[in-house]
C-alpha cells in the first residue's frame, strides 16, 4: 500500500493513457470487454485519487521525480536546481483531481447508452480517456512545459470529441473553433514559458518561484499567461467560443469540457499564487481578475436571457458562474500580501471560489446531462418546441429543477453554500461586488424558471406523446450528480473542512511549495 501511494500520482496520469492505447485493440475483439475495461480503469483511477488525496491532506505535499533514482530525489548532486520533470501534488491538485475523477466516471457511465448506435465508439472512448488523462496531467504536474503538453492533449482530444456528431455542420464548426482558440492560447502559454526560461534557465514551477525577480520580462510573461488561460476558461473578452462549443458537443463531453476549463482556472491560480506569489502587484492583478469576473457574470447572464437553445442557455450560465469564481479569486489575490486581512476574509474568499469550482462542475454537469437527455429523446434543443415533457420524463424534470436551483444559489443546495462564502467575504472587500453578484443570481433563477416552465410543464404535446424516460445508465449518471449536490448542500462545513481548506492553505502558502522541491536536497 505504501508503494502504491508513493507511485499513485504517476499512475493516475499513466493508467488512463495506457488504457487509451489499449482501447482500440480491445474494441476490435469485443465491445462489452472494452466498456468494462474503460469503466473499471476509471474507477481504479478514482480510487487512487481518493487515497492520494487522503495522504496529501494528512501528510503534506507529494513529490514524484520522474526518471530519478528515487521519487523524492528532486535535485541531483552537483547542481542546485531540479533537472528532471517533477510531479508536485498539493492540496489544490488533489482537489482538482477529485473533481476530475468524479466527473469522468459519470461521463463514461452516461455515454454508455447515450452513444449507443453511433459509429466509431472505439475512438470515442479512446479520446475520452486521453482527455481525462490529460486533465489529470495538467493538475498534477509541477513543470511548466509539461503543463503545456497536457494542455495540448486535452484540447486536441476535446476538439475531436466536440465534432463527434459528424452529421451536423455546427458541431464541426464548434470543434474548429475550440481547436483554434486552444491552439492560439497554448502557443501563447509556450511563448510565456520561453520568456521565463530565457531568464532563469528553469522550467520547474517551484524553482522558478524561488528564483523569481519580477522583472519587466516577467510582467510581460504574466500578462500573456493570464490572458491565455482566461481565453481557455472562457473569461469575458474571449467568451464567444464557449457557447458555440458547449452547445454542440455530446452532453457527456460537455461535462468533461467544464473540467478542462476548470483545469485552466487551476493553472491560472497556480501561476498567480505560486509562481508569482507575493512578488506581484497584488492589487492591480487582483482587480484585473475581479474585472474579468464581473464582466463574465454580467455578460453571461444577459446573454443567457436571450437564448432559446437550452444548451446555449446553460453554456452562458457557465460563463456567468466562472465569473463568481474569478471574483472570489481576485479578492484573494488582492489581499494576499496583508496577513491580517487575509485571515479575516481573504482565505474565505478563496475558499468560496474553490468550493464553487466543484459545485459548478456538479450542477452545470447535471444541467448539461439533462439537456443531453432531452436531446436524446426528442432530437431538438429549442426550448420553444418543447412542452409538457414533465409528464413523461419525470425524473429528468426533477434533476433539471435541482440543477437550476443549485445554480441560482438557493438553499439548501450546494450552490448556496459556496456563493454565501463568496458574498460574505467580498462584501467586506467591496460591497458593490456582492450586490452585483446577488442580482446576477436572481436573474439566473428567473432564466431557469422560465426555461423549466416552457420545457417541462403545460399540456403534453401530441408529437411527444410516446417519449419515454431515458435509459437506466443515463438516469444513474444524473443521480450520482444529484446525490452529491444534495449532500454538499446539507453538509457544506464538512466538505470545506476536508478538501477545500487544505486547497486554500496550499494556495496561500507559496513557501511550502518551494520547500517541497528543496526539501529532498542531498
Amino acid at each position, binding site marked *: 500500500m505504501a508503494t502504491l501511494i508513493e507511485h499513485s500520482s504517476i499512475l493516475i496520469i499513466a493508467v488512463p493513457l495506457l488504457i487509451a492505447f489499449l482501447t482500440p485493440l480491445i474494441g476490435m475483439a469485443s465491445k462489452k470487454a472494452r466498456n468494462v475495461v474503460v469503466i473499471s480503469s476509471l474507477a481504479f483511477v478514482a480510487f487512487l485519487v481518493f487515497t492520494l488525496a487522503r495522504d496529501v491532506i494528512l501528510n503534506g505535499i507529494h513529490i514524484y521525480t520522474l526518471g530519478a533514482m528515487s521519487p523524492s530525489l528532486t535535485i541531483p548532486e552537483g547542481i542546485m536546481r531540479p533537472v528532471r520533470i517533477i510531479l508536485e501534488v498539493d492540496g489544490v491538485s488533489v482537489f482538482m483531481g477529485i473533481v476530475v475523477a468524479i466527473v469522468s466516471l459519470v461521463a463514461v457511465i452516461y455515454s454508455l447508452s447515450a452513444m449507443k448506435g453511433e459509429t466509431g465508439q472505439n*475512438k470515442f472512448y479512446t479520446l475520452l480517456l486521453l482527455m481525462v488523462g490529460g486533465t489529470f496531467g495538467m493538475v498534477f504536474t509541477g513543470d511548466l512545459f509539461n503543463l503545456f503538453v497536457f494542455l495540448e492533449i486535452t484540447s486536441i482530444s476535446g476538439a475531436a470529441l466536440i465534432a463527434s456528431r459528424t452529421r451536423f455542420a455546427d458541431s464541426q464548426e464548434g470543434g474548429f473553433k475550440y481547436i483554434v482558440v486552444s491552439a492560439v492560447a497554448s502557443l501563447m502559454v509556450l511563448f510565456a514559458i520561453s520568456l521565463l526560461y530565457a531568464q532563469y534557465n528553469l522550467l520547474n514551477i517551484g524553482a522558478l518561484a524561488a528564483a523569481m525577480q519580477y522583472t519587466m520580462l516577467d510582467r510581460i510573461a504574466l500578462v500573456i499567461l493570464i490572458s491565455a488561460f482566461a481565453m481557455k476558461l472562457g473569461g469575458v473578452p474571449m467568451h464567444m467560443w464557449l457557447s458555440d462549443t458547449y452547445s454542440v458537443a455530446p452532453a457527456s463531453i460537455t461535462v468533461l469540457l467544464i473540467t478542462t476549463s476548470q483545469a485552466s482556472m487551476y493553472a491560472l491560480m497556480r501561476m498567480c499564487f505560486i509562481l508569482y506569489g507575493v512578488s506581484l502587484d497584488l492589487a492591480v492583478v487582483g482587480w484585473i481578475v475581479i474585472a474579468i469576473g464581473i464582466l463574465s457574470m454580467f455578460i453571461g447572464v444577459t446573454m443567457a436571457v436571450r437564448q432559446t437553445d437550452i444548451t446555449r442557455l446553460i453554456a452562458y450560465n457557465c460563463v456567468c458562474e466562472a465569473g463568481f469564481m474569478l471574483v472570489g479569486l481576485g479578492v484573494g489575490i488582492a489581499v494576499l500580501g496583508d496577513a491580517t486581512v487575509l485571515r479575516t476574509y481573504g482565505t474565505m474568499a478563496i475558499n468560496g471560489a474553490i468550493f464553487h469550482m466543484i459545485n459548478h462542475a456538479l450542477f452545470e454537469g447535471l444541467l448539461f446531462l439533462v439537456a443531453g437527455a432531452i436531446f436524446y429523446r426528442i432530437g431538438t434543443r429549442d426550448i420553444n418546441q418543447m412542452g409538457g415533457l414533465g409528464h413523461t420524463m419525470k425524473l429528468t424534470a426533477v434533476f433539471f429543477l435541482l440543477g437550476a436551483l443549485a445554480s441560482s444559489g438557493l438553499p439548501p443546495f450546494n450552490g448556496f453554500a459556496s456563493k454565501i462564502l463568496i458574498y460574505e467575504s467580498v462584501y467586506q472587500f467591496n460591497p458593490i461586488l456582492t450586490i452585483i453578484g446577488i442580482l446576477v443570481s436572481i436573474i439566473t433563477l428567473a432564466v431557469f424558471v422560465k426555461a423549466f416552465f416552457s420545457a417541462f410543464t403545460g399540456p403534453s404535446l401530441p408529437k411527444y406523446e410516446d417519449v419515454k424516460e431515458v435509459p437506466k445508465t443515463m438516469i444513474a449518471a444524473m443521480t450520482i450528480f444529484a446525490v452529491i449536490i444534495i449532500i454538499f448542500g446539507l453538509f457544506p462545513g464538512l466538505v470545506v473542512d476536508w478538501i477545500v481548506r487544505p486547497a486554500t492553505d496550499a494556495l496561500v502558502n507559496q513557501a511550502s511549495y518551494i520547500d517541497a522541491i528543496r526539501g529532498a536536497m542531498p
Partner: protein
Amino acid sequence: MRQFFAWLFLVVLMVFLVIGGFKMVHPFGEPPSAMDQYIIDNSQEQAGSNNVVAAVVFDYRGFDTLGEATVLFAAVTGVMFVLRAGGKKEET
C-alpha cells in the same frame, strides 16, 4: 471599429514584445545555462547517450515525450474519428 481595435491590439503587443526582445532578453549567444550545462556534462554517464538531445527527449524529459506521442495519437485518432463514415446507425 472592430478592425481598429484589432489593429491597436496587434501594434501595441508587437511594440512591447520587440522592445522586450531587444532590451530584456539576455544577449544573443550567451544564455544562462546552469541546467543545460549539467545535462551536457552528465548525459553520457547517466543516460549513456552520445546524443544529448536524445538523452533529454527520452530520459531527462521523457514524460514530455510520452505526452507528445499521446498528442500525435490523439490527433490521428481524432482525424479518423472526425472523418468516419455515417452518423448514427439505425436503431434496431
